[in-house]
């Protein structure tokens, strides 16, 4: 099962570091290697399901904000990253959530990550506020630190579990999850269900 996860967050909140740490388990304070870290694949097991996460990093600068939909369309999940030492970055999270709900709809699973928890002493975003907000939009919240490798597995596992559950529900009863084009999403499955609800009799090969 291939699942698309889009990484959203303001510039320099640590999206790239999270990706690096999570996929390759690397962290470099003075990032010297110039390996690209913007698209990565990760295989993950959720219960009995083998899922392949395609993680899409996005450009976080404000000037590119309007281009967001190009990246997050078709996404199964979004990891919204903010920097706990930067309240502005959390404001941005609210904006993303609104936008995602508006454009992708309620199907997209959202996990919010408060990054740089290792810098707790510089915290500027109040925990209560964050948790309440997350709850209100139906998102999970985690604290993470790419530097200390904290919370990342949990973050992605939670997201993957949600996505897998949702996809399973979507495809349940469908003729075959395999052949259903991803782009069409749930609508297409519905059509399939009503059209040929029984077993595929013929012409299923194409």
């Amino acid at each position: 099962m291939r699942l698309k996860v889009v990484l959203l967050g303001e510039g320099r909140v640590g999206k790239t570091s999270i990706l690096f740490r999570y996929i390759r388990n690397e962290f470099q304070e003075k990032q010297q290697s110039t390996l690209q870290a913007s698209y990565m694949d990760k295989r993950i097991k959720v219960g009995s399901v083998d899922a392949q996460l395609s993680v899409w990093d996005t450009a976080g600068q404000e000037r590119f904000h309007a281009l967001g939909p190009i990246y997050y369309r078709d996404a199964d999940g979004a990891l919204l990253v903010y920097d706990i030492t930067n309240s502005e970055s959390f404001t941005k999270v609210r904006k993303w959530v609104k936008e995602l709900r508006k454009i992708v709809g309620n199907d997209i699973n959202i996990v919010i990550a408060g990054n740089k928890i290792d810098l707790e002493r510089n915290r500027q975003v109040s925990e209560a506020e964050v948790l309440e907000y997350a709850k209100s939009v139906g998102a999970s919240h985690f604290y993470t630190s790419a530097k200390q490798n904290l919370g990342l597995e949990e973050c992605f596992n939670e997201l993957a579990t949600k996505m897998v559950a949702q996809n399973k529900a979507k495809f349940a009863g469908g003729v075959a999850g395999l052949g259903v084009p991803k782009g069409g999403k749930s609508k297409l499955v519905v059509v399939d269900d009503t059209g040929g609800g029984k077993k595929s009799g013929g012409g299923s090969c194409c």
Partner: protein
Amino acid sequence: MSSVSNDDNNGNNISVDDLIELENKTENKTENKTENNLENKTEKRRNNDYDEDEGGDGDESDSDDSDLKNLRESLALSPSDLPVDDLHLSLPPSTSTSSSPLPQSHPQSLSPSTPLPTSPLGLRLYTTLKASNPSYVYTPPLLPSSFLNIVQHPPELPHSEIVRLEIENKTPIGLTLRVQYPYVIVHSLTPGGPAEKGGVKVGDVLFEINGIGTNGISLEESVKRISSSSSHILLTHSRLLPHPLSLLLSSHSLITPPSGIEIITKQIRIYNERGSMFGGGVVEVGEGKGGEGGGDSVPERIYRRHYDSLTSSFHPSPSSSFLLNFKHARRFIHTTLNVYKKEYVVSCYDVESRVFWNSEVRGEEEFVRLREELGAERKSIFQIGLGGKTKSELDKFIKKVTTLIYTSNLHPSSVSLLLKIQSFLSTPTHLPPPPSLLLTSLSSYTFRILLMPVFQVLLQNFLDSITIPKQEEIIVKVKNNEREGLQREAKRVGGEIREFAEKIKRLIMQGCSSDLSLLHSRFLTPVSESTIASEVYRTISIPLYTGLRSSISRLIVNGYRIPDVLILKNTPSLKTTFKPPKHCQQTWSKSISNFKNNVTTPILPSDKINGIISTSKVIEKEYKGTEHLAADDYLPIFIHIILEGGAGERCYSLVELCKIFLREEERLGEKGYWLATVEAAVEFIRCKGEEVKEEEEEVKDELFGKERLEGLLAQSGFLG
């Protein structure tokens, strides 16, 4: 040097010729390339109205040439680049004789003139691309047995049927025929006539008439055969579409004998069309209970021998041929040197299965050196007596050659040639061929499957069936500013092509899975199935896309004219104001030229998409900063590349084209990601990061205003 120039005269032009033909069919009109700047174009348009006939445009032929050159390069298909031959050559186990893995489904199938004993292998298709030049005889791969299984137990496809039509004294049977070489096809039926009553349908392919194959016969001949029957007529027919596989059932009648080698009772005559001065090779012979008249005797042992035409009866006339006196020869590998063209031709012929291929060896110097280095070994082979135990020594020889080819830096075609020879002699491979060869092999393999008549017909039918808005309709839509309609059409046509290619891909992937995995297993570096799939897909889309390319470009370019123009307008100002992040501020000249060469220039959309990934890698290499490159950086860098002209003047259309042809399964993956990045970059330039409603209106006004129709129709314009 010489090898390079040889590249051009040799096999490569086959594919190109073939493609030209394809192109010509659907594309009589040449197209403009994107190179012209806008003003220039508008001016031309003014003179030409929207006439598509752009004979005056100087750069057209160039563009076509380069298109073809690109295709040629991308195809890289030449007889000597076809390592896949080994696959079908190796299909019947080398020492097996008459035992065939395939059921004997067509006992009396061969045409009566064939002097050979009937081959039990039911399915064998030969395609002659250039009948005039025997060295260009292609033998498409024998269909692997797994493919056959599908064919013979088609899950949903009907077999071909035999229709028996009883007729009284030469009454007409009520059908007209047409010949679509090499098929005889039912053109029309007389309502209520015997043929219609018998279940024949328009479009059926007749494989046999009264038990005699119809492959390649003329219309007159086929009519004569039918009308000469007095009491009944047996027609073996099959529906063309949508049941392509059923065609294969009767494909035995499609066999055409190989040219270049002829069997004259126990002797082999090998024609040297090129006036060879040297010839020699290896022959595999079976010895044992050779039945003289039976024809199906089973030799008990197989030997391999080297022979040299100088020591055989050899007639050194320009179109020479010579006879070999080997009894029960099974297979030959024969080398000839054309002294004039300085090239070697290696031919292989399998007597039993009648599989024949030949291939020019390019990179002659390497080959000569190889021969020299092998001097000592060669000598020992010459000394092998005819009755000696030659097998192990020959194996040793081949192994030695193998090692040499793999360890020295030889021309790739030598390697692929070797793969064939190895396979022909059933010498196991233990050394990895260069990885790039796998892709070449895959595309050659696929391409040769596509060359089979059945697939040719299939492709052609698809191309014929697809409906594309005509030039006039496009003009009307543009006049009425219904560009969305054009966009929808582009998506529909592109989608149909993509799906059809996907279907064929699945067919080949399933049917030839054993072949493909065999090919795959020769490579030590693991290659994912998706790599194989996308290579197969790519090859399929070549003939498909080539045929429809101009139509699709026309739809897309006209459909997305407004954003394209906006981008052109925005570029100069953005160029001065837009800056990538500090650590990414460099010229990126390599990345720009990489984008040009690998995204903008290539013809196939799938190549363009791959090109984007390659550019992302070049960016990584060219990057001089120390921080990790991240999405925050890639997007601005791509914007920079496009601002600097890397994507040509129709970058919006370019992106849309790629999006249409991006396969579903790639959408969420790496290809989808990088395409999205380019899309975002283009979008950024289009709207300068802002809302653009007003500007869009402005452009529309402009397009509708003074220049109105002239500028409106963004003409043809390849996205290539």
